[in-house]
């Protein structure tokens, strides 16, 4: 088991290195390098001659090592991330990208994990409920609803929620985490309430698809388990149905859900991203989108790396927890 976990860790490190290469390529693909952007930035600011601008750009090139071969540049970039948490410099924000990402990452994680856990629990409970009532009205309704939810563009749900909130309910709880009066306050219960009022649409939208998926997987698994012989045995020895479900069926139907967590996580991040961009909630999503539009390459590349890293970690956690929870799986 320990061997398996160590092996998974080593693979994850290699995956991260690969992910870093692709993120780096994305940074390098647009024509010109970082110093070219700097040139444009200085020219736009004015007050310098063409030659001065050129010299300043060259100095920056030498300083950042942009005149060195790609491989060295890549290794330097990775070294900065790993040792100092530095992802490069953003002109739009005039700060290091690492700091920018850091403060938003916490909120993104809170929202994605909230959406993830809520959708897992809701999905599992609805799945258990309808599996016991196969082909009933509630089963069919839930299945159709799950299907429709997976087919509706999330950015449109976000638009509808924004429309309803702002123009029908006259609530202006979008485009920020807090109402102005709470923005600088220390954390309190009222502030948490205010926070929830602002971010629930993002959690809701990101979670919807997850509920639909978990529900279908749980329903299918539980139906499979319920037709197993040990369930029949449990029933025939006179165990009440609730106990059969709780003690015998559900624990055995849960494993695929755990194995599935790794694949659901990216889905949550994407949902969070889509909703946050449309609603303007300042998490990583809008930052990523703005950086793409304004060609702020170090933000785009850094965020791409962060997103992929989160997925790698998510998969790692899912694999390890499956190894811990499912005694049927042997690792040698």
């Amino acid at each position: 088991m320990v061997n398996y976990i160590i092996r998974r860790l080593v693979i994850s490190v290699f995956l991260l290195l690969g992910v870093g290469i692709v993120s780096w390529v994305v940074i390098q693909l647009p024509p010109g390098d970082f110093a070219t952007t700097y040139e444009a930035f200085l020219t736009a600011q004015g007050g310098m001659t063409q030659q001065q601008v050129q010299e300043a750009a060259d100095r920056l090139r030498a300083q950042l090592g942009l005149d060195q071969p790609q491989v060295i540049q890549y290794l330097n970039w990775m070294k900065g991330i790993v040792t100092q948490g530095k992802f490069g410099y953003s002109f739009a924000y005039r700060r290091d990208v690492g700091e920018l990402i850091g403060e938003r990452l916490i909120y993104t994680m809170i929202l994605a994990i909230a959406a993830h856990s809520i959708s897992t629990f809701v999905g599992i409970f609805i799945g258990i409920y309808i599996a016991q009532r196969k082909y009933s009205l509630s089963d069919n309704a839930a299945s159709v609803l799950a299907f429709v939810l997976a087919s509706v563009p999330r950015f449109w749900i976000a638009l509808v929620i924004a429309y309803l909130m702002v123009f029908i309910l006259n609530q202006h709880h979008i485009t920020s985490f807090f109402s102005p009066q709470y923005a600088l306050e220390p954390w309190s219960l009222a502030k948490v309430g205010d926070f929830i009022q602002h971010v629930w649409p993002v959690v809701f939208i990101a979670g919807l698809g997850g509920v639909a998926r978990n529900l279908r997987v749980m329903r299918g698994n539980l139906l499979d388990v319920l037709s197993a012989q040990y369930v029949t045995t449990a029933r025939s020895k006179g165990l009440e149905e609730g106990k059969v479900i709780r003690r015998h069926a559900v624990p055995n139907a849960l494993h695929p859900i755990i194995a599935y967590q790794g694949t659901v996580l990216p889905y949550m991040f994407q949902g969070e991203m889509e909703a946050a961009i449309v609603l303007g909630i300042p998490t990583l999503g809008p930052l990523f989108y703005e950086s793409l539009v304004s060609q702020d390459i170090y933000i785009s590349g850094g965020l791409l790396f962060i997103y992929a890293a989160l997925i790698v970690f998510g998969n790692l956690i899912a694999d390890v927890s499956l190894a811990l929870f499912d005694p049927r799986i042997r690792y040698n």
Partner: protein
Amino acid sequence: MDSTDTILQPQEPKTPFDKVAAETLLSESAQHESYFQLVWRRFRRSKAAIVGALLVLALVILAVFADFFSPYPLREAKLQDAFIPPSTVRFVDAEGNFHLRPFVYAEEVTINLKTFEPTWTENTDTTYAIRFFVKGWEYKILGLIPSNLHLFGVEEGGLIHLMGTDKFGRDLFGKSCEAGRISLTMAMFGTLISVTIGSVLGVASGYYGGRADTAIQRFVEFVNCFPQLPLWMALAAIVPRTWDSFSIFVIMAFIFALLSWTTLEREVRGKVLAFRQSDFVLAAKEMGASDKRIIFLHLYPNTLSHVLVILTLTIPAIILAEAFLSFLGIGIQEPLISWGLLMRNAQNLQTLGLYPWVMSPVFFIIAAVLGFNFMGDGLRDAADPYATM
């Protein structure tokens, strides 16, 4: 060797040749249903799958004959007709009289002098009857046959915009029909590329095994650990805006294909791996069939139904992604038009609040995604017709 020789000796038929029995056998085997007939039979039984297929068919027809369905020229912008709300098609007029022929009321515009925002109101004094198969603006059917026939239109002076108009006064219904051309072909083209990549790698991985298999599987794991949406967005944003529309279209399709092929690769590999050891493949090998023959005649056809299922489920995923990217302005670029691009005005909260119908192209997206999803679900149940339900 002796024993095998005796086994291979032709044995005397125990019963004399029965012509009638042989003929019944022949005619029965002619009536025997092929694999795809069986799949079709099962597919047909699922109502949802049929509804899905019809939805997709309807969207394709609307897209191909968009000029016929659009009452207004697709290439013209009429700025004075900006932000007209969807017309209400009526049978009963303000006095409560019933009209057999549907009609619309006249639309009148008032401009807010402070903000210059147009507000349209219905004037119940004037009615315009809706006519079907009317002659209108000129176009070419499929780009070949000149015609000026349109499905519907109103009498001279009236306006009919089933889904309203956008900032440029373009009829959103007609434009949505036309946008289906790009949205649907983009999704299908992207899916086709991803199916090709997935099939080739899947067959290679499953059939040849060994090192190639290991390498391909590691690569699949690597590709899978990329978040689809962010990478799609990053790559789409890099595509230079100065390229011509066709190049942008092709490159976008490739970008979407880039991350969508892994599910299919896994599925094809699994099937090929399972069939590689089956009797019919071993028999073909013993008879000296080449790898090419075994792969294309025996192995790949057996994975086709599963390929078809994943294909139908990849298309809606690409439709959704393309819509979101185009909605953000980093996907399809004007003059090409897609459903997401048509909804771009809705990104502005003020526009959205005043003219909520700018979101209406979403109904085409939902119809397309639902249609393909229903179809894919039906196909999944039908793909294995030998299993009992």
